[in-house]
Structure formats: C-alpha cells, structure tokens
C-alpha cells in the first residue's frame, strides 16, 4: 500500500517502511542502541533523500528509546545521575552537529560526509569491538575469567577534577571525559541520524568500566532526550522532519523493540557484545564497499536548487 510522504515529496510502500521499523526496532530493543545507524542507511537505500532520512530518524530514535528507557527503569537498570551528565554533553554536541549538518548541506557535501563518517566510525569501532568480544568469548569458553576492573590501575582521565560518585554504576570519576564523550556522540548523532548508542554503550563498558547491566538503560535515557532535541532542531532549522515517515517507522519500531528487549534479556554478556560488534562492523563494511569499489555508475546527479 502506497503512501505519499509530504516532506520527502515521494510515495513509499507503507508495509516496507513498517517492516523496516520492526526489524530495526527488534535489534534496537535487544542491544539498547537506537538503531539509527541501521535505519538511516536503509532509508537512504530505499530512496529517501539523506537530509530527510537523518532528520526523521531522530524522531524515531526518540520513540524507541522512550520505550526502552521505561523498560529498563522498571528493572532498575538505569543510572539517572550518569544519564543526566551524559545528556548535558549530548545537548551541546547536538546543537553543534545540527549547525554543521546545515553548513554541509548548503555546500552540497552532506552525502560525502555521511558516507565517510559511517565508514570511519562503524568500521573502526566495529573492528575494535569485534576483537575484544571475540577474545572475551574465547576466554569464557575456556573457563577463564578476566578481571573486570583491574585494581590500582587508572587511566589518565581519572585524575581530572570535578569527580562525582555514580552509585548505581559503581563509579567515582571526573565528569570531564564523560561530557566530552557525550558531546561527541551528540554531534555525530545530529549529523549522521544516529542515536549514538552503538558508540556510547561500548565506550561506557570498555573505557569507563560501567557494569553492562546499567549501561543499556542509561544509554537509552541519554539518547531519548538528545533525540528529542535533535528532532526539534532539525524541524526548526532545515524543515526536513517528515512526520508521516516518522510515525510509520515508530509504529513498526515499537513492536519490534518489545520482542528485541525480551530476546536481549536472555543473552549472555560475551555473546551480546560479539553480536553487536558483528552488526556495527557489518554496516561499516557495507559503506566501505561504496568507498573502495568501483560504483555501478561513476556519475551521480544531485539537484541543488529548484525554481518553482
């Protein structure tokens, strides 16, 4: 069944969009990632203009992270204090990101920036996660247990001022590196149409050693508010949020997310991380193919302005 998108100005198959929302929602609920890094490329693939895909995806991520946050809140697997610190950094990053997005769109380099960033972010991060989680899986299968947090050893960032206690995360560290991480993610989120969960989750686990149990809920909480802000900023500055597309994606997504969250709860830590790594690396690889192989048509045309 076809439905016309008022902002994207093209008709799409409603069922295709709903199914895409459900599939990505399942993954999103399972891993506590917004799923934007999968959905935005998929939307671009089915022909939605990149600017509209990125802006609309922000609204979808807001909805799916709302569902997720509540679920984790009920399980008490959410560190509100850490989430609020992350949020402060995230909002700053989002504002900068939307400004950068609009500037790139003006000079016509938005698509190049998006592809290149996806390759670097997803490829690099995916590879790192893959190596780490494979090692963890091997260690777990041979019966060894790695010390989760090495005593006495601290990174340089732990000596910075503004230290704060995060009881639920069993953490006592400076908020400066956390704010920096969050603003970077907010920036990337606004430019790439991603929530940033797939960066935030591993960063909290590997760098800050936050227990896996609270990471997902906290990440979703931060993403919820950053994406509400991103939706507002995109809507007011570049008018690219398509409400019809957003509602279709959200409805598909919330159903998928419910089943994903249940599947994720039964998954062991090592395998959870390995699966997420494979997923992130896979999407990065897909973009790398675009970058490293000869495209089917070496020419591409972009409409830069229309006289009506």
């Amino acid at each position: 069944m076809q439905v016309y998108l008022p902002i994207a100005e093209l008709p799409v198959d409603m069922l295709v969009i709903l199914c895409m929302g459900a599939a990505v929602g399942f993954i999103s609920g399972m891993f506590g990632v917004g799923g934007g890094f999968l959905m935005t490329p998929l939307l671009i693939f089915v022909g939605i203009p990149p600017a509209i895909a990125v802006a609309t995806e922000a609204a979808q991520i807001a909805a799916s992270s709302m569902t997720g946050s509540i679920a984790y809140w009920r399980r008490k697997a959410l560190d509100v204090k850490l989430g609020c610190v992350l949020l402060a950094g995230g909002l700053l990053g989002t504002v900068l990101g939307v400004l950068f997005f609009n500037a790139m769109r003006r000079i016509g380099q938005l698509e190049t920036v998006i592809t290149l960033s996806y390759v670097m972010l997803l490829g690099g991060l995916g590879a790192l996660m893959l190596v780490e989680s494979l090692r963890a899986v091997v260690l777990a299968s041979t019966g060894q247990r790695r010390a989760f947090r090495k005593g006495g050893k601290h990174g340089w960032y732990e000596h910075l001022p503004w230290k704060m206690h995060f009881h639920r995360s069993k953490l006592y560290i400076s908020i400066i590196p956390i704010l920096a991480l969050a603003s970077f993610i907010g920036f990337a989120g606004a430019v790439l149409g991603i929530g940033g969960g797939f960066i935030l989750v591993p960063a909290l686990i590997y760098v800050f050693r936050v227990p896996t149990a609270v990471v997902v809920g906290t990440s979703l909480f931060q993403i919820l508010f950053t994406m509400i802000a991103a939706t507002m900023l995109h809507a007011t500055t570049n008018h690219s949020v398509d409400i019809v597309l957003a509602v279709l994606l959200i409805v598909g997504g919330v159903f998928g997310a419910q089943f994903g969250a249940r599947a994720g709860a039964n998954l062991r830590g090592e395998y959870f991380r390995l699966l997420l790594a494979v997923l992130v690396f896979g999407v990065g690889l897909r973009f790398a193919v675009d970058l490293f192989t000869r495209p089917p048509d070496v020419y591409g045309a972009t409409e830069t302005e229309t006289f009506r």
Partner: protein
Amino acid sequence: MKGCALKLLAAAAGLLAAGAGRSETLMTSLSSDHIAITSNFTGADLALFGAVERDPASGPRAINYDVVVTVRGPRGAVTVREKKRIGPFWINADQRKYIAIPSFIEVLANRPLDEIASASLRAELHFGAEMLVPAQAAKDRLVDEAEPDFRVALIRLRTRQHLFREVVPGVQFFDPKLFRAVVHVPGIVPLGPYDVDVALLADGALLARSTQRFIVTKSGVEATLAAAARERPILYGLSTASLAVLIGWLATVIFRRD
C-alpha cells in the same frame, strides 16, 4: 473605411504568403490543468487531445501529420559528479553544474523523432531530452572535452529514475486530423508548474505549435503538513517529538506483562 479593410486583407495575404504552408491551425486540450497530490498519490495520467484545422483556401494537400509533445517540469540546478579512483578510494573527483535543467521531461511522438525531423530542426525545436539539456559552457578552458560525458550521464541517470522519458508511439491519430496522447506523471514527480508543448509537423517541417500548462501541488493533509513544517516549525517539531514519545510510552503500556 473600405480602403482600410482592403489594406488589412492585403496585409493578411502577405502574412500568409510569408509563412508558406502555415495554413494549419493546431488546437489542443488537456484533461486537467492541476494535479493534486494526496496521501495515496502514486502518479497521475493526463489526456491530451488535439485537432488540426486546415485552411480550405490553401488547397487540398494529402498530408501525414506528425506530432511531438514535450512535457517539461520546473527547472532546477543539477550538479553532476564523477567518481574516480584516488588511492584506494572511489570519491567524487570532478563535477559540472547544469543550471535550468527541467526536473521532468516527457517526450511523446507518433513515430521516432529522427524520422519526424532532421537533426538541425530537432535541435532548433528542442525535441528530445538531449536537446533540452544544454551543454555547459567551459569556464576555465577553451574546450571542455569531458563535459559531454557529464551531460550524457545526467540524461542516463534521470532516465533510470523515470524522470526523463521518451514514448514512441505516444501520440495516436484516430483520424488524419485528430490525435490523442497520454501524459504520465510519476509519483516522485517534482512539484510546480509544467509546460506541455505540442508541435505539428509534416514532411520534416514545422506547421504549428500550441502550449498548455498544468501544475502539480500538494493538497489536503499533505499540503497542511508541509505548510506546518515550513511556517510553524516549532509547533511542528514539538508535535512530532511528542507524538514519538507518546507512542513510545503507549507501547510499554500495551506490552506490559504484569
């Protein structure tokens, strides 16, 4: 008074003589001048009817008429980029910008264009997509050898998107002097004013032209939403965000197990 009328007659005769063979009048009619895009819009068809009237004073002529219909969408600037291998990467290396390119071109004719008119006449009358996408003037060099590749690529890309089409036979004569054509507007069509240019030819010469217009606009809910996004962005953004959060919350209520 009489002298004046005679003068007019003489002038008219002179005009007729100057435009030798211009004894045909072309009348056309489009089934609608407005395409309204609603939520279930996936494209639309417009019927074009045409009639040829021949001045009996110019004597009988056994003619097989040819008709070329050109539909052009709103013009826009298009940047065509060429990817090249630089090191291990395939990245945009070269580009040409084309200004005032129709966003939609549909050419309908009763038989192949090269049989209807010579290459020079086709160029003069802008028959076919190739003739509607003008070459870009070389800026910093005398001869731009790569430019034609970009132009060909642009036409190829737009043809693949079904935004440039040539339909032969797309014009049907159901009487030697009456014809019909169906203008097909696809779902991804750009919004704005469209020109429909109808040219009547015979024996490789232009006899008459006629122009119609139609406009593609959003209507109903689509128009309201698009206007809201543009004119009340804060309200629009707030509604979208609240809707998102509301559905997200509703899902947890619906799916709550306890």
